[in-house]
């Protein structure tokens, strides 16, 4: 009788340990995915920062009267390149996106510029970079969601709290109204 109880307790303990090990490993794996996804965003942000001096150089000759717009972009870029937390950087990047937006609206007044091959190539690269940032952000947020799900759900949350894992923050646009801005079309 007592051996039966002993065996039951032992089996229970072994199962418990197995559960702890597997949950811990799962959390580590998910956290690494989050980190990897974040580094993907970083790569794309850096790509954008590298493209901007090129862009400013290309358009300077055409846009003598748009000093302010160009300076805005350069400033926003310098601000965004400073290290900071996820939410700080998200905000800075949002400003840079806005500055680029304004710039491309202004470009419509310069038909010569729009015909420039260099500029067209740069425009494609910038568009793609914007897309990549969006997609990388989406992928990052997906990984964060997976991680946080495990962190918040019972009983895995106990393991997470025990080993000191922290919930990760999403890369969100600061101003939700910003997303509702109507699509600007360049016809």
């Amino acid at each position: 009788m007592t051996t039966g109880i002993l065996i039951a307790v032992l089996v229970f303990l072994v199962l418990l340990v197995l559960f702890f090990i597997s949950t811990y490993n799962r959390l580590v794996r998910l956290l690494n995915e989050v980190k990897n996804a974040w580094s993907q965003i970083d790569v794309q942000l850096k790509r954008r920062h590298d493209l901007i001096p090129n862009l400013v150089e290309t358009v300077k000759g055409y846009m003598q009267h748009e000093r302010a717009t160009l300076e805005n972009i350069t400033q926003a870029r310098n601000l965004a390149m400073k290290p900071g937390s996820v939410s700080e950087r998200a905000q800075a990047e949002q400003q840079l996106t806005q500055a680029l937006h304004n710039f491309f609206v202004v470009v419509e007044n310069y038909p010569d510029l729009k015909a420039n091959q260099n500029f067209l190539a740069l425009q494609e690269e910038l568009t793609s970079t914007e897309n990549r940032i969006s997609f990388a952000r989406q992928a990052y947020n997906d990984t964060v969601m997976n991680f946080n799900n495990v962190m918040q759900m019972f009983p895995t949350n106990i393991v997470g709290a025990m080993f000191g894992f922290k919930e990760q923050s999403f890369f969100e646009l600061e101003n939700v109204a910003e997303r509702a801005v109507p699509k600007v079309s360049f016809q």
Partner: protein
Amino acid sequence: MFELIRQNKRRSILLAMLMLIFMLLIGYIIGSFLAFTFYYISEPYAFAKDKIINNPSQRYNQNYPPNYSPSHPSERPPLTYEQVMFFTWFYWGPLGAMVAFVIWFIQMLFAYYSGGKILLSISNAIKIEKADHPQLYNIVEEMKIASRLPAMPEIYVIDDPSINAFATGRSPEHSAVAVTRGLLNTMNRDQIQGVIAHEISHITHRDTLYMTMLAVSLGTIILLVVGLREIVGAGIRGSTRYSGRNRKDAGGLIFFLLVVYIFALLLSLIAPFLAQIIYFACSRQREYLADAGAVVFTRNPEGLASALETIANRYQKQPATDVNQIIAPLYIVNPLETRNLDASSVFSTHPPLQRRIQILRNIARTPSLTYEQAWKQVEGKKWEKGAFAPIVPSTTSSTTPITSTLTQSPTTPLQNARLSGNAIMKAQKYTFLNCACGVTLKIPPRYNGKVICPRCKAVHTV
């Protein structure tokens, strides 16, 4: 959506297993049939009608010369009926199944490692690099990021005016997407993105591997069944000659052969159809799932919807004919089925285009819908022939596609055509010469000599 994929995965594994079992069964039948026929000829005693003869010297009387005796003591005695049956069903049958498996396995290995390459080479696809067509490369890389693919797929362009695209590759690490030149010419950035997202989700769902496996099983089954029919046919011809020599007991053998022949004939007629129905049903399911994946990656259902609409409109005007039915499931739209937009049969590789477009547009209209819900709304409905779901402008902020942050000025079809043409020429190592008058001369790689500019008549040497 994810539930749908999981459910589908389970079902498709089951189907693949069934296909394999069916194949092994046919191998088993062939093995045991061959053994049985062989025994029938070589072991007459086992099949002798009168088995009560106990005298060993007499038991040969029926089929052997009267004073027959084993020429050597070690010669094995003739098999009994039970032994023949045992060897037939439990030795030669399983061996036949094993041979079938080996045939399948060799084909599978071959298809696994070089199927993609063969497919790309028979469609004359040309591999391009980033410099050849920056926009296409960028779109593929964007989708690679969105789908978290571990490696960048290779990109191919097919020099063909039709609008189509396909993906191949055994795993997400080794994949390729191919688009036709016609697709690059007619579609805008959003539409190409929708198509590429569809193809990449084929890769992430491992559809190419799965469909390759099904196709190989299908091929092996057809091979085996036709083989069985041929062997039995030869057996019948042989046994009629045999009966000429020994008319007395050939009747039973011929009857048996005829039964097997009819069985093999029926099987060889039915099996390919059955296998194809399974194959195409899988393919249809997976097209829906790839569409769903494309929506998840781009968050822009309208891109893919309008791309499909463009394809449908084009093929209604000029249907394609030269398409291999077995590789058709790999394309984004089966060119052979584009005339039939609103109905699908058991032999369709793709769901009806109209239905696919309707599902995507329903999601665009109410973004809270999952693909699965939209699919259920559309499932089973009937539409007027040839009418597509109208484009509905998005009203809520969340329908704004994920890529709307910067919009490019739209390019004209002429510009697109020039870009895609240049991409193919660049990939084939053409030399691009800029003449002082502004004309770009494109010179084939093997050409040596002088070129005269058609506008300013300046002479360039290559």
